[in-house]
């Protein structure tokens, strides 16, 4: 395990050092961005609507029963910004994009395409890892930015039309405006940026370390997704602790 962590850190450092070559890789970065957005946007929309909707459904009636219906908008607003959007979108992207990264790079490794790159003196980190890392680090915060208002809308919809909650749009968004600061949105975006780096580096590392045949590719994909999700949840705790202590 410690060897893996060391290898991941070395890969991350090498990718960081390759950052000045981003402009050269812009075509690949834009292809990756399109891939991530194209594959994920609809899922992000559905997931955000329903997560916020279910949260409203679970908490709304209890809050209303205790006369606290006026805080529902703020609660949904904050939970979407700071927790649900970054964490759920990161898990979604780990499943859809992290797995694809590990599979593609793993197949390239198994079928000697990465060896071929090295014989042409083309660094696989610059050619394969850098574009994916940059694309995911841009795309995940952008998807979270999209997910937050969609989630708010989902929460408002359920709050307005559920008979046991019955809080109208105006009251919901009034409460949300009172509670949610731009700093809370930034908080979520920062988290998602760190999650994106974790997903990208874990998935690329798994891909590059694939050995064997098609079965090994499958194993790499599974490991990439599982390790990414574990990393997301561990990082989430420490990032939350960190962001709670810094002043707004």
């Amino acid at each position, binding site marked *: 395990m410690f060897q893996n962590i060391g290898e991941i850190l070395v890969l991350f450092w090498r990718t960081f050092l390759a950052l000045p*070559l981003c402009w050269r890789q812009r075509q690949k970065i834009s292809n990756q961005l399109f891939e991530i957005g194209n594959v994920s946007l609809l899922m992000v929309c559905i997931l955000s609507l329903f997560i916020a909707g279910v949260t409203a459904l679970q908490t709304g009636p209890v809050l209303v029963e205790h006369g606290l219906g006026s805080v529902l908008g703020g609660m949904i607003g904050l939970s979407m910004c700071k927790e649900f959007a970054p964490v759920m979108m990161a898990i979604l992207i780990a499943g859809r994009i992290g797995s694809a990264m590990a599979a*593609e790079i793993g197949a390239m490794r198994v*079928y*000697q*395409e990465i*060896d071929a790159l090295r014989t*042409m003196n*083309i660094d696989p980190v*610059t050619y394969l890892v850098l574009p994916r890392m940059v694309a995911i680090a841009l795309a995940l915060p952008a998807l979270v930015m999209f997910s937050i208002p969609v989630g708010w809308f989902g929460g408002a919809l359920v709050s307005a039309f559920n008979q046991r909650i019955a809080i109208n749009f105006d009251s919901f968004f009034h409460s949300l405006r009172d509670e949610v600061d731009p700093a809370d949105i930034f908080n979520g975006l920062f988290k998602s940026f760190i999650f994106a780096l974790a997903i990208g580096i874990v998935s690329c590392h798994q891909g590059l370390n694939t050995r064997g045949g098609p079965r090994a590719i499958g194993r790499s994909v599974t490991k990439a997704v599982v390790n990414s999700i574990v990393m997301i949840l561990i990082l989430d705790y420490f990032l939350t602790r960190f962001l709670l202590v810094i002043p707004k």
Partner: protein
Amino acid sequence: MSAAPSQLENVSVEVRGLHKSFGSLHVLKGLSFNVKPGEIFVIMGPSGSGKSVLLRHIIGLEKPDEGEILIQGEPVNESGLRDKYRIAMVFQSAALLTSLTVGENVGLYLAEHRLKSPSEIAAIVSQKLEAVGLKGVENRAPAELSGGMQKRVAIARALVMEPQLFLFDEPTAELDPPMAVTIDEEILELKNRTHATSIIVTHDRPMALSLADRVAMIIEGQILFIGTPDEVRRHPDSRIQKFINAKPPVSKPRNMS
């Protein structure tokens, strides 16, 4: 990424006491030999004797357990060596990038190192593909080509590098005889034009004995013999003769019952 080397010279290869094991399997058992600048050096031997592993060491894709490999007197894994010398390899499996078109594969080295403009790259790609008998396939995906055609694309991709050291892993496997001859001619032409040093791993006996300046026979991870094709033909060792003169048992054909 590096620019092109400033000067092109023939390179020598020296392998000294090379050992490599994979787990308990001792694949290379102390190989030592020299390849002279501009020479065509053919490595022959039965399957599993360690020929491809040796080639991967020479290009720096594997690290030896013991021993060293020197390109023009410099260790192959030394940083900056690949910026100094152009070394190309044609893999047995072709190893084309499946996410790119054939043309993009062939022009990848020039494009990634920014050695030519896109229009110049396109012209060179067409020229090299034509040289290996593939015309008008630039926009096709590698998966749309047969195994033999993929191998020829891989050779074209290596030719684009104008290498000083050219490594071939079974370059004529999966090719029909006329195309195998074309590849032989291309290797000879490359030698005459650029004086590139070539190391070829092959089972193709006609190719080995007609092209090689010297032939090395590897059996069970050890070099049995190094000599000219004539010396190989005349060598008394029964293992070499068995390999060189192997023929199907015509008197006992299979599946005739």
